[in-house]
């Protein structure tokens, strides 16, 4: 018998999509039965009370979680989000309901052995509820009490060789797509670079020293499966500089209808026979492709590597061999000054151990942002305030047309004195010799 009646939430049990309500309700029952005699370290009715407080929100249309609360583990300034409910008398099981962010392995591959360890830990020392994964990429352990935090951290670091993730004004847990591990389009080892940069900057991740949050995301190619261009202050997107590799036999097989276009992604509807002119050549944004004597030709110099032709014909077209990545900076959600997409900072950089060139770019940007950024000013906002040219200068690059979509619309150029012949120091008396008042 459930502790709280949840007539509203119960209506979210029907329908095909997996019901989080069903899952939590079943978890609540299992905690009460406790067939494995787990020595629960947080209230046994934590799941019941979570359902209870959520039902209350469904009834009165507002949240019942209080604002913040500074809790954490010794020596770290992030990784734990303090959370308390505003009706602790009604729902004591979730009076304290802190979140623990756990660093996920880059690319989010797991063994069942590891996950079971995590489940055992979280069943005993937390609510038994998780997010796989949080929006930034962490494994999120949802709901525990303050005395458990050090215990959880001890267990994670000592027995699972795993650290906490980031929160607050620090480097947030970086995330990558699965990259070369299972994708033919990965232009660099996104998982490895993500892992290496995560470990290189552990201090920045755990100890807040930035004006505000800072996110890294690593996309293996311009398809952008980890959404770095929209969601990270510094976005690393794989690309190449040479030619798309063409297998003309496979092109012919696509044209002849032997291979499904786009890997069969449109199989749920009859779109008719594949038409390479209509589906590939005419859709190329730079019009740099054509058919000649039954062969596909690409003027690679004009190609902007949008990925469409490769996506449509993965067996015929392959990414180039001279690979690396582009770095874009400043993406963020609308708070405060409106949403921003990442802007191109580094058109191309090789990805080679020990990644010194990439680290120089990262550290150049951080140095500038930490010097010039105001409290709670995201990198993108600083770039807007001071201009992209300052960001380019901060990492010591030469401005190139690739940095902009088009040149500026106004001539309001902030010339520097040293750039203007003769300097700015002038004498009015001299001027008046030639110009009467």
């Amino acid at each position, binding site marked *: 018998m459930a502790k709280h009646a949840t007539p509203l*939430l119960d209506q979210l*049990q029907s*329908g095909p*999509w*997996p*019901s*989080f309500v*069903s*899952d939590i*309700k079943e978890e609540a029952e*299992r905690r009460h039965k406790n067939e494995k005699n787990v020595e629960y370290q947080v209230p046994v009715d934590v799941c019941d009370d979570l359902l209870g407080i959520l039902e209350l*929100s*469904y009834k009165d*249309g*507002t*949240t019942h*979680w*209080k604002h*913040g609360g500074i809790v954490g583990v010794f*020596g770290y300034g992030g990784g734990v989000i303090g*959370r308390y409910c505003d009706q602790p008398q009604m729902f004591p099981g979730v009076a304290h309901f802190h979140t623990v962010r756990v660093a996920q392995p*880059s690319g*989010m*591959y*797991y*063994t*069942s*052995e590891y996950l*079971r360890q995590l*489940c055992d830990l979280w069943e005993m020392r937390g609510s038994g509820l998780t997010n*796989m*994964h949080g*929006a*930034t990429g962490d494994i999120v352990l949802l709901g525990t009490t303050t005395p458990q935090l*050090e215990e959880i951290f001890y267990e994670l*670091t*000592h027995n699972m060789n795993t650290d906490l993730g980031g929160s607050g004004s620090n480097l947030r847990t970086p*995330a990558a797509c*699965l990259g070369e*591990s*299972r*994708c*033919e389009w990965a232009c660099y080892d996104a998982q490895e670079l993500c*892992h290496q940069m*995560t470990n290189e900057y*552990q201090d920045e991740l*755990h100890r807040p020293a930035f004006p505000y949050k800072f996110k890294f995301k690593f996309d293996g190619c311009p398809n952008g499966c980890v*959404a770095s261009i*929209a969601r990270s202050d510094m976005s690393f997107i794989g690309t190449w500089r040479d030619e798309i590799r063409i297998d003309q036999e496979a092109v012919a097989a696509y044209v002849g209808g032997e291979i499904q276009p*786009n890997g*069969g*992604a449109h*199989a*749920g509807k009859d779109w008719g026979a594949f038409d390479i002119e209509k589906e590939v050549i005419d*859709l190329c944004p730079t019009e740099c492709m054509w058919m000649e004597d039954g062969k596909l030709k690409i003027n690679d110099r004009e190609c902007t590597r*949008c990925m469409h032709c490769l996506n449509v014909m993965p*067996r015929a077209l392959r990414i180039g061999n001279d690979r690396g990545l582009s770095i874009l900076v400043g993406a963020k*959600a609308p708070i405060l000054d409106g949403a921003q*997409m990442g802007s191109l900072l580094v058109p191309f950089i090789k990805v080679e151990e020990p990644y010194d060139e990439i680290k120089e770019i990262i550290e150049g940007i951080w140095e500038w942002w930490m010097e010039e950024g105001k*409290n709670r000013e995201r990198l993108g906002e600083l770039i807007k305030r001071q201009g992209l040219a300052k960001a380019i200068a901060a990492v010591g690059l030469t401005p190139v047309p690739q940095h902009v979509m088009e040149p500026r619309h106004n001539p309001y150029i902030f010339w520097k004195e040293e750039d203007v012949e003769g300097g700015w120091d002038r004498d009015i008396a001299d001027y008046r010799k030639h110009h009467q008042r």
Partner: protein
Amino acid sequence: MAFISTGYDPSKPMEGRITDIGPRHFEEFYPPVIKKNKGQWAYHEICEAGILMHKAKGGDEVYTVRCGGARLISVTLLREVCDIADKYCGGYVRWTTRNNVEFMVDTLAKAKELKADLNSRKFAGGSFKFPVGGTGAGITNIVHTQGWVHCHTPATDASGTVKVAMDELFEHFTKMDLPAPVRVSMACCLNMCGAVHCSDIAILGYHRKPPIIDNKVLDNICEIPLAVAACPTGAIRPTKTEHEGKTVNTVAIKQDRCMFCGNCYTMCPALPLSDKEGDGLVIMAGGKISNRISRPKFSKVVVAFIPNEPPRWPTLAKVLRQIVTAYAAEANKYERLGDWAERIGWERFFEKTGLEFTSHLIDDFRDPAYYTWRQTTQFKW
């Protein structure tokens, strides 16, 4: 409930302390076929909805079965994932960036058997536990935030609205019958932990009432200058007021300048915004992240407000259906929702979807607003 120590001694926090070790190295978790063929993949195809095949240059094949699920998942369900991974996949499993679970096997026959098994597992409440799909030109799982389950600033619930949305759009999760992928995202307030601002369809929680000022405690629990500085429209100023016979330091809010972002509440807990009638949803559409064909683009507000209607948010479900149905019927193959809207013109988008255009949809927030107005005589009747 006796306290059980792991071995940590609070009086000596540094003793044996391990810090700054980061995540586990991902290679420890690679299935053997992934480890062997990393960087050597030749191509992939989607065998059927929810089953991908990746072929390595050396001839190896890996079949991936993708299934959706709630992002909020219990340890019991997680253990069931482990059981499935043990039974079919040598104990390996992975998650996608959109909260899908992927199981990898070595033959199509095994993949199909696994798909059938996954589709057979249901909660006592009736819903699927691991519905297979989410591949190709369809609708995959929704990335989202915490909502009323765990957050202090939401204007709506996340898990509930996502459940409603995926129930409504489920057929497109299991069939690849759309012109291109439609990425749906959900964030329960403007902070957008879920960064929904570049999604084909974004569901966004939004407040519509200015903060209530808790004069009794404001000066004790807030730094007034920070609260003032937090306001992007300069609507907040420091002031003094009479409270229970005493003069207290507090803030005053110019309510007609408030655009309900909640940034002041982030800085000052004495300025709560949430309200049953005030809070609800904004629907945005036409954003994308990929560079494919067209540039990445922001989502645009197409419905200014939908009231919170828990538990099943029927208006939300109806609006999603309207947008997806019009797009599915009208867009060209490979054309993302935003590209379709731009090709036909946004005036046509409102006509085709049947959504109402209101004054709220004309941008008036700073510079970017101008660039969204029509500086041409070219438009459609």
